[in-house]
């Protein structure tokens, strides 16, 4: 696993974290290149299914980040998102997903350094955890035969 480089996808809001990442850039703060940012208008827009889709497509870790409470460009999207993540995380934990691979954070447009730190810490953590294959290869399990599935259940 020595040369494993984690693949991280970041779901960020346009107004705070995307701008915070821009600031990290204009400040030339260096951080790990493993992260790919996908831009949303607001954390309130981020569908929980997208997190599952990211894991399916091969992300080893996820960052979800938006405006600090009270700073939402749309006044309340992040509060709704916070509730969504509280529920969703509870479910993922209960089902046994490795939620340690998902970093939730508030990064404001002024927190370029925090953004870099969040990315670096997430990358380091995921690098230690190794690739996440629990989930992404499940589209093979149960195809074509009933035996492996029923074997699993009766075990």
């Amino acid at each position, binding site marked *: 696993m020595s040369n494993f480089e984690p693949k991280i996808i970041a779901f960020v809001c346009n107004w705070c974290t995307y701008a915070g990442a821009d600031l990290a850039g204009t400040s030339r703060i260096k951080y790990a290149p493993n992260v790919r940012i996908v831009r949303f208008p607001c954390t309130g827009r981020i569908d929980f299914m997208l997190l599952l889709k990211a894991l399916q497509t091969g992300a080893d870790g996820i960052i979800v980040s938006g405006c600090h409470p009270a700073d939402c460009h749309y006044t309340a999207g992040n509060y709704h998102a916070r509730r969504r993540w509280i529920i*969703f995380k509870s479910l993922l934990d209960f089902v*046994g997903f490795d939620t340690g691979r998902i970093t939730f954070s508030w990064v404001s447009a002024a927190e370029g350094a925090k953004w870099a730190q*969040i990315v670096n810490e997430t990358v380091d953590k995921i690098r230690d955890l190794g690739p996440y294959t629990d989930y992404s290869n499940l589209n093979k399990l149960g195809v074509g035969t009933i035996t492996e599935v029923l074997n699993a259940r009766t075990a």
Partner: protein
Amino acid sequence: MQELHNKIKSILENGSASLFIAYQKSREGKITPTFITKPEQSQKAYFGDDCKQNLAVYIHKQEVKNFGKVGIFANIYTLKSLLQIYAENQIRDDYLKVVTINPNGAIVEFANFMEIENYVNENKPAPNPEDMERVEKLSNLSREERWDYWLNELSTCIKCYACRAACPMCYCTKCTVDCNQPQWISTPSHSLGNIEWHIMRAMHLAGRCVECNECARVCPMDIPLNLLTVKLNDTANIEFGQQAGLKGELDYALSTFKVDDKENFIR
């Protein structure tokens, strides 16, 4: 039972409903729903502790709606469901006549949803201790053990969608799983598609599930699906103090917020 028959009879006779949905018991002892349209059929109705099916699910059915005004015999979970879907704008007060039997064995006919709300709050069923225990037990396992448990259980799902069909809260015109532009949920019943489906189902029911446990009862593969929604209801209750099926006004954990909602994982 006679009292129930008389009540149904009078409801059908006086025109407050042209269809009455109740339970019946077959000769072999099987409990099934029955759809009474004629007053003289009223004695088909049966009620006992063995009447588990959540009849509220029929309220969404087009062919039931076609009857116009409908009467329904409701156990406590059906009442909770009716209240919840009323809050979600799916029923009109004047199109539904609801009857139940209270714990003392008396017939109660509700004039409106306010009365149902009061009744449900007075007769709130306690959480099923068995389910709570199973949730607790699962929560105490290691993450890997939980994953193995659910992967095994959910891998057996054949995607017959009985869980969806039996649930009164699953009334969407078009379910997410039927959206294919984009295909949010893999429809094949491989393990990935199954887990996606059940996670989405649980998320959509979080804070809306009335814990009637129909989803688990109807599952041909005996997957304890209800544990997922029971768990999320518990989370919604603990974190946001919100419970489903107790209010005629919308009270949904995920469409409201408090500025000081607490969490311990957002950095």
